[in-house]
């Protein structure tokens, strides 16, 4: 069975985030004065063929750890397909 996951990769707190900073500092000029703590990371969506969701998730976890994130500077979390549907 095919399982769809989303992986959110975020910068570890405290590290420089030039993109987040750039977005944050451009907001007031656009009329958004009440926004703070903007951080930019990566979003990865992928499908995994596996017999169970647990097995698929294990693979996604390994991929996220080994390739999609750099553990020195980034954290990640995996959202299963169900969570992905919780969209606004």
């Amino acid at each position, binding site marked *: 069975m095919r399982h769809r996951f989303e992986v959110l990769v975020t910068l*570890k707190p*405290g*590290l*420089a985030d*030039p*993109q987040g900073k*750039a977005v944050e500092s451009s907001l007031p000029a656009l009329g958004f004065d009440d926004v703070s703590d903007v951080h930019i990371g*990566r979003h990865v969506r992928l499908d995994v063929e596996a017999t169970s969701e647990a097995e698929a998730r294990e693979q996604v976890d390994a991929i996220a750890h*080994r*390739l*999609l994130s*750099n553990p*020195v*500077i980034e954290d990640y979390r995996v959202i299963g397909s169900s969570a992905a549907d919780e969209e606004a």
Partner: protein
Amino acid sequence: MAIATPRVGVITFLGSLDDRDALRAVATMGGEGVALWHGDHDLQGVDAVVLPGGFSYGDYLRCGAIAGHAPILDEVRAFADRGGPVLGICNGFQILCEAGLLPGALIRNASLRFICRDVFLRVETSQSPVTADLVPGEVVEIPIKHGEGQFVATPEQLQHIEEAGLVVFRYADAAGSVNRSTNPNGSVENIAGVRNDSGNVVGLMPHPEHAVDPDVGPTGGQALFASLLAAALAGAGALP
């Protein structure tokens, strides 16, 4: 007795761009350049290894991330463990960080823009294969050309990097003074290049291979390549 010619391997990853330039720089400085291929498990018995600049795999995921898993990295790791001199330039530096051979990481420039221009680097240590012939405090002029050259590290890493003297170069001015205005990309502590604990693996964002031929740029890379060739001749990386 004939003087041996050091053999310096330059790895081509998919998306490497300055690989030919690095080979040419090795030759210009009197070494023999040997082209190596990312997919091979073979360093062809070279005396030193250069990971060149470029955009391996487009740097699409994260600079150096995918190339950091290339088959040849196993050989580079073993070579480095034996003490062989390894130099990562720009994308090569990013790959070495991703592969865990050097501390820290490189993220987008503080300006969020690619920057191509000449910079001055202050040499911080002579304990590295590319600075062995230089004296700390000396200044060399070399171009940078990168969009993701901002060196960052965790606080613990950074403390170790500074305490153990792992910084090899800092962005400076012509007089060697290091401050915010001489920092082109936001790197923490103006760090332009670092080494590993044993000193034989070095990475830097600037491009010494574009600084050996006076007709096309500054010449601050000459001393670095001369050092690397000398280190290669010492043969530290040879198999027992």
